[in-house]
């Protein structure tokens, strides 16, 4: 009788131990100082920042700082700025196969969800009636241009937000190229021919690479890195 009683107590204790392992709390760690960084971890909470951000390591950049991969964009976010960008701003990137392909990839992540993969305003969110009234790129009233696309992606317009925090300047311009190609397609125009400039640069690079090979340079393929820097 006593034995049964003891067994019952032990089993209840075990069951309660197991069931107390909550999913809402992290597991305990063995020697936590091996796990926890001395440096500030991304999004970490630290006392030292209490007076700055309320403790969070994540904070806004210092005022006036220019993000890597960006140049200051001087056109203002108003109707005049929009009209100016629409008329004058030109895509600095060559219209090459690579930049359009990369633009397509980015477009399908960031834009296609509303504007549709064809640019007809029939993205998933539009079809599911979550966000309405998304125009097709060939909308006559808007008559978008390279410059106006960039301006709108940079600042956002009306219900559309800014995409400058998700992409770099170059990436925005690549998407710009792709949007223009979609617009041409919607208009039934012929696809724009890729610029030749890029091909020449490529050819030069390749001959350079061959020189490197002849010189017997490193295994890791530093020519590849050169290539990356060239873009």
């Amino acid at each position, binding site marked *: 009788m006593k034995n049964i009683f003891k067994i019952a107590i032990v089993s209840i204790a075990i069951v309660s131990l197991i069931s107390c392992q909550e999913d*809402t709390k992290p597991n305990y*760690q063995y020697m936590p100082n091996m796990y926890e960084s001395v440096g500030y971890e*991304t999004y970490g909470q630290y006392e030292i920042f209490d007076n700055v951000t309320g403790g969070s390591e994540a904070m806004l950049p210092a005022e006036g700082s220019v993000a890597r991969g960006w140049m200051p964009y001087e056109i203002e976010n108003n109707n005049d700025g929009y009209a100016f960008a629409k008329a004058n701003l030109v895509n600095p990137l060559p219209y090459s196969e690579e930049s359009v392909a990369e633009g397509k990839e980015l477009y399908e992540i960031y834009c296609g*969800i509303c504007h549709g993969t064809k640019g007809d305003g029939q993205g998933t969110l539009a079809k*599911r009636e979550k966000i309405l*009234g998304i125009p097709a790129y060939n909308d006559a009233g808007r008559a978008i241009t390279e410059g106006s696309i960039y301006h709108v992606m940079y600042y956002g317009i009306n219900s559309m937000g800014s995409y400058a925090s998700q992409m770099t300047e170059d990436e925005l311009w690549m998407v710009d190229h792709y949007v223009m190609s979609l617009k041409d397609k919607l208009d039934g125009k012929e696809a724009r021919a890729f610029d030749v400039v890029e091909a020449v640069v490529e050819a030069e690079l390749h001959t350079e690479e061959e020189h490197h090979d002849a010189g017997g340079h490193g295994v890791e*393929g530093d020519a590849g890195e050169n290539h990356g820097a060239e873009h």
Partner: protein
Amino acid sequence: MIQVNRRNSFSRIITLCAAFLLTLSTSLFSQIDASTGDAEAGKSLFNTNCAACHKLYKNMTGPSLFGVVQKYEEDYEWLGKWIRNSTALIATGDARANAIFEEYNQTAMNTFEGLSDADISNILAYTNEEPPVIIDEGPGDDSTVEPGVSNNIILAILGLVLLLLVAVLFLVNNTLKKFAQAQGIEIAEEETGKSIWKAFVENQFLVLVSVIFLLLGSAYFAYGWMSQVGVDQGYAPVQPIHYSHRIHAGDNQIECKYCHSSARVSKTSGIPSLNICMNCHKSISEVAGREAGDNSSVNEDYSKEFYDKEIQKLYKAVGWDEATQSYTGETQAVEWVRIHNLPDFAYFNHSQHVSVAGIECQKCHGPVEEMEIMEQFAPLTMGWCINCHRETNVNLEGNEYYEKIHEQLSKKYGVEKLTAAQMGGLECGKCHY
């Protein structure tokens, strides 16, 4: 005479016809009238052309449009001009047009020259539609709540019955024993029980074997218990805002990298800042309820009211005033609880896995698009990392960086495709330094 008469009547008919046609055509021309419009057709026109900036019953980028005809005293001519080209109307110095332009922060409305009078009539007819009366969802809610409650009740009743049974058996046993004692009957069971235990203790071989099994068993459990220390698989903390990956990534098929954009280019995948939420939630201030059918994401456990409250939390944190459709500038930090956290001594880079290797997010994070509450799917242990490095081939497509080394190493190992491990993915220094 007769001929002349005829000619006369003929020309008269022609002029009459022309006059009639002319009046008809003019009456067709500048006639926008909401009462002749078709609200159904207007709805689809409204959704494609106007809904980007206007809602019927709420201000958005532009004013709410319900009752706009009455607001402007059925001045259809003016409305038509405004809708087709408001900028031109403002430029003429029209007082009413300029007042609206100023009221809505000088936001220029797009031109809609392509809309016919009939189109505009249809749209205006649609703007006259009364807001749908929200039907009391009482019975619907009850039916959803009931099964949960009754299940709990049934379980509680079952538990009670079991407890009662145990108590009854215990009491019966006791009373029977008392009867036995009272009638002087001895219970012989005890002795036989004792003899079994004694026999066991006396048999040394049996004791040895059972001790070995006991030790092996406890070692097995101890090992299992110790190897889960520091492993947070299944960790699903309560977040400050209930964000449903099921709705966003599953139902609405938003790309992971839309919000976690730095996973493409940086070490950390990044918790999206609230401006990214507002990219969509500027227009989406509430969740579609059950009436939306397939487009609705609410279910029994999570109601529309519940989700709407969470969106309000977002608005509060980001300082968005719904009434004026502008930012107040009063923001609060949302303190998300980090789920996936590698120990300090292990280096992991998202961009290398996402952009270079092209691995699906789901490979490590599991079926996130089905998770209502985000949880850690993988154990994130070293064995788990290494296993994948052994099995996964290096993605070489369009990556000149790897070409040469791949050529050399594949010759060395005599394989066509290198795994990550063969490229050095098992070297200690790659992740621990």
